[in-house]
């Protein structure tokens, strides 16, 4: 379903990582480990098609990547001048799907519908990012340190959402922190 074949990424003369290969199928959860700067987030961006690999290739599931792929990352920001409801609806409209409002309730945002995104705490923004990433029921879910900024309730909500996604056949690639490690069934250490 998702195959990464000999992927490497170089910035100038510096190779961040090289020869990364793996293949994942429905329901798998891969945890990408590594120190700061080892290229975990970059690898997720390469898989998502937001950065081109310097070598190798990524094969995503067939279909429109706007719907087959969801990404929640720390450095992908939200529109601060839209409300939670407007932002969620915008994402659905752009993907061509109906807004899946119950997901907003699952991440605990039911009372924040009409609040501007710019007024939310970093943890609440992280919940909204995860809701947007999973709203189109993607086949591949990429989570870049989803536990950062979340309190225990938020982490539990993410854990549950990931479980639901995996149960319906979505594969997950997440970068390392204690939350993601507890979610995973497979591990890839970029340091090695």
């Amino acid at each position, binding site marked *: 379903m998702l195959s990464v074949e000999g992927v490497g990424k170089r910035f100038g003369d510096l190779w961040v990582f090289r020869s990364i290969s793996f293949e994942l199928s429905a329901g798998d959860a891969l945890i990408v480990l590594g120190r700061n700067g080892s290229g975990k987030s970059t690898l997720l961006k390469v898989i998502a098609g937001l950065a081109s690999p310097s070598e190798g290739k990524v094969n995503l599931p067939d279909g429109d990547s706007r719907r087959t792929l969801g990404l929640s990352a720390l450095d992908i920001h939200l529109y601060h001048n839209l409300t939670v409801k*407007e932002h969620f609806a915008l994402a659905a409209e752009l993907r061509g799907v109906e807004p899946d409002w119950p997901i907003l309730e699952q991440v605990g945002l039911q009372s924040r519908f009409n609040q501007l995104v710019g007024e939310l705490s970093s943890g609440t923004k992280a919940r909204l990012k995860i809701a947007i990433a999973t709203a189109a029921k993607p086949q591949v879910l990429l989570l870049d340190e989803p536990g950062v900024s979340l309190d225990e309730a938020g982490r539990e909500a993410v854990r549950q959402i990931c479980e639901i996604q995996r149960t319906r056949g979505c594969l997950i690639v997440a970068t390392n922190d204690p939350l993601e490690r507890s979610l995973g069934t497979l591990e890839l250490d970029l340091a090695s």
Partner: protein
Amino acid sequence: MNSTWQAEIGAVFRKELKTELRTKSGLFSSGLFSIIAVIAVALAGYGERIDPTMGAGLFWVTLLFSAMISLPRAFVSEEEAGTGDQLRLLARPHAVFWGKALFNMLLMAATSVVLSVMFVVFTNLKVDHLLLFALSLAGGCVALAISVTLCGALVAQATNRSALAGVIGIPLLLPFVAMGVGALRVSLGSGSVNSGLISCGGLYAFALLMGAAAPNLYAAIWKG
């Protein structure tokens, strides 16, 4: 529900409109520039009627700089705020381009209406051919909005945006600014109507050409 271009373009347009209505950054910056520019022109030619050719040139310079202040923001602000990747994940490039270009057309239309009224009131410019004046302004606004939107899209991801904007902007904007001045000059009473109509036709042809080329050019650098 199947995604349609219309719905996607509409979604981007509404996002731009809501953001602008809440921040008013584009309206304020281009509005303020227009007011100051017209007052400066009015004071410089105080008590005298401005020559139509000069008036057309000044009008277009003001319109062009108003556009250059606010329109490229549509793409540049996405990269500055870190929302560019969000858009690249969720949307298709043609929908993003047209959504933003349509919003910029609306902004240009509002600016040009305000600018026209202010020029007529403060500088005593007399419009001899109202239809040609309106047609040249409408064509000019469309061409200007598409060109400057493309300019913003091309420079948004670059490190040295200002320098790149100058290099790309001059060849992109000069041809239709010349045609716009030509058409406006005639509508203000200088030159033959035929030459004005030819300039006006050139403006629309340029807008059409840019409308066909710009979204495809943007799509090519979409995830660059």
